[in-house]
């Protein structure tokens, strides 16, 4: 187990180095001149060169990369050109907000999606299945921004129950997480339904019936753990992506999270912030991958660590 953990952590570290190179290249490939962003369009060429020098942007690429890596190792993500603040400050401020939104949206997805998947599998090709599956198809085909707008218009604006946007209170969280959750739940429903149907056709399910177990017990005790495995993988990746920022939802609800920050930084060519948000998303994915592997091990004894 310890050896496995060390190997995994080492592996994750190498992946992160790779990602740092990629983000660095992205920053390099961004069209436009970051120095111009800082000094403005009217500055004279001398000033531009001067600033370029102080920013270290006239040095060879690999030197720039290593100094970037060095700063990264010291927790220094640079300075936002646009916001005039340390990037770490910006990110940490918004990451908390995104994490809360991501987790609650994720919870809504799972709370709706998994039971729906189970129900539609148990009542496969019966009326319950047809109704719920149709609802799920509607859910999966709703554009996020449309659902978000619909909520804002009907619930916030017309009924005046919940705030239109912003953050800071649990009330601000309800509509954005419902928006995220409803659109995302349908995917869980399909995933769980398909895999439960597959599980129900397995011989060990017939054995469970042959022992005299009730359908309820067969579904939960004998089927669920096997059937939920694909949903666990997906859930891990899903929360990783959500943590990296939910651009559309945050934009629609004017929610100050990573997604909104990423959006702004791209609009303003704020290279250090772009790099930081990409890096953050990547870290989320790597970390969640790791957690999912451990979870797998706990759910499925056939996977042995060694």
């Amino acid at each position, binding site marked *: 187990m310890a050896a496995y953990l060390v190997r995994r952590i080492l592996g994750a570290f190498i992946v992160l180095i790779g990602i740092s190179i990629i983000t660095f290249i992205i920053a390099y490939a961004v069209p436009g001149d970051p120095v111009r962003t800082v000094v403005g369009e009217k500055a004279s060429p001398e000033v531009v060169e001067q600033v370029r020098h102080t920013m270290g942007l006239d040095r060879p690429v690999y030197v720039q990369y290593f100094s970037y890596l060095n700063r990264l190792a010291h927790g220094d993500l640079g300075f936002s050109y646009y916001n005039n603040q340390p990037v770490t400050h910006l990110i940490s401020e918004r990451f908390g907000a995104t994490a809360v939104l991501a987790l609650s949206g994720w919870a809504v997805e799972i709370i709706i999606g998994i039971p729906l998947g189970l129900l539609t599998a148990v009542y496969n090709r019966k009326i319950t299945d047809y109704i719920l599956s149709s609802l799920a198809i509607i859910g999966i085909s709703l554009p996020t921004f449309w659902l978000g707008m619909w909520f804002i218009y009907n619930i916030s604006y017309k009924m005046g129950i919940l705030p239109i946007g912003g953050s800071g209170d649990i009330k601000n969280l309800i509509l954005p997480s419902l928006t995220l959750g409803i659109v995302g739940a349908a995917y869980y429903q399909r995933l769980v339904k398909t895999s439960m149907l597959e599980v129900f056709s397995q*011989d060990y399910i*017939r*054995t*469970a019936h042959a022992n005299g*177990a009730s359908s309820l017990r067969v579904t939960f005790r004998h089927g669920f*753990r096997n059937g939920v495995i694909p949903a666990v993988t997906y859930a891990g990746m899903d929360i990783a992506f959500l943590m990296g920022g939910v651009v559309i939802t945050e934009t629609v609800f004017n929610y100050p999270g990573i997604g909104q920050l990423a959006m702004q930084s791209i609009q303003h060519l704020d290279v250090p912030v772009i790099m930081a948000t990409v890096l953050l998303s990547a870290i989320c994915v790597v970390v969640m991958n790791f957690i999912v592997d451990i979870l797998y091990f706990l759910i499925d004894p056939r996977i042995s660590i060694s």
Partner: protein
Amino acid sequence: MEKPLLDISNLKVSFKSDGTYLNALSGVNLSIYPGESVALVGESGCGKSVTSLSIMRLLKANAKVEGQISFNGKNLLSLGTKEMRKIRGQDVSMIFQEPMSALNPVIRIGDQIGEPLFLHEKLTKRQIKTRVLELLRLVGIARPEEIYREYIHQLSGGMRQRVMIAMAMACKPKLIIADEPTTALDVTVQAQILDLLRNLQKENNMALLLITHDLGVVSEMCERAAVMYAGKIVEESTVDTLFNDPRHPYTKGLISSIPKLEGERNRLKPIPGNVPSLANMPQGCRFAPRCEFAMEQCIHQEPSYMAINKKTSVGCWLERGNNDDRSTATS
């Protein structure tokens, strides 16, 4: 005479596919007496598994089942789900062919064996565990404490089947149905598992329905045997009589196709032709197209299945006293 424990009469099963029903069983009759061991033999696809699953009412939803299966005086086919659940695993249990797929990959072996006990007997967790450990020892598993905590993929094929047997034995059922319990195993292991099954059955005075296509196994394990062909039982008798005096041409064919170890290989002759498909059942006797003794009558009319003496029942026109017609046999 004693009453049969299980009495299947005129069992018909058909499967719905593409809007039509195909008959997999067309009138199966079979009785098993308490403590008796009966073999059900026949080529692949003749309906052995369908018969066994009908008893347990475990056929897929596309199956239509008619007839009567009475067990201990109750017609299983008309029981409610709840009553049927009480019988499964408690009065009748099953051993399947592939223990690897028939056991749950993510539940500990001990818990799986304990499941029928949990479902049918009012026992505490501790009591269940004690019983499961006893069962593991009973089926010849050394280190029961360790195996209890393991998962099915950690065991060898023979051990897996021992686990299945332990599970089937848990509530001391009156009838065990074993559907080709050793087909998936090595030859040496097969003998051990069959021995174990035979001994447990004898010691506990349980009835056994052993499904197999290995006639060698039949003579070692069973007192009586029923031969099945294309969804019907064509002959049934005590094992001795069946081997020494087979009546139905299909039974004769099966027996002469058993490889004998004593240098008789050249006399091994497989039955020519193939089992008819469900969609294309011959109109008369189903075996007629493959039968070397087939007569005009065989092709047009189905022979009825009836007792010809105390021990033997058979469904063949040749057993109807019109032996004179043999000269007009076509093939």
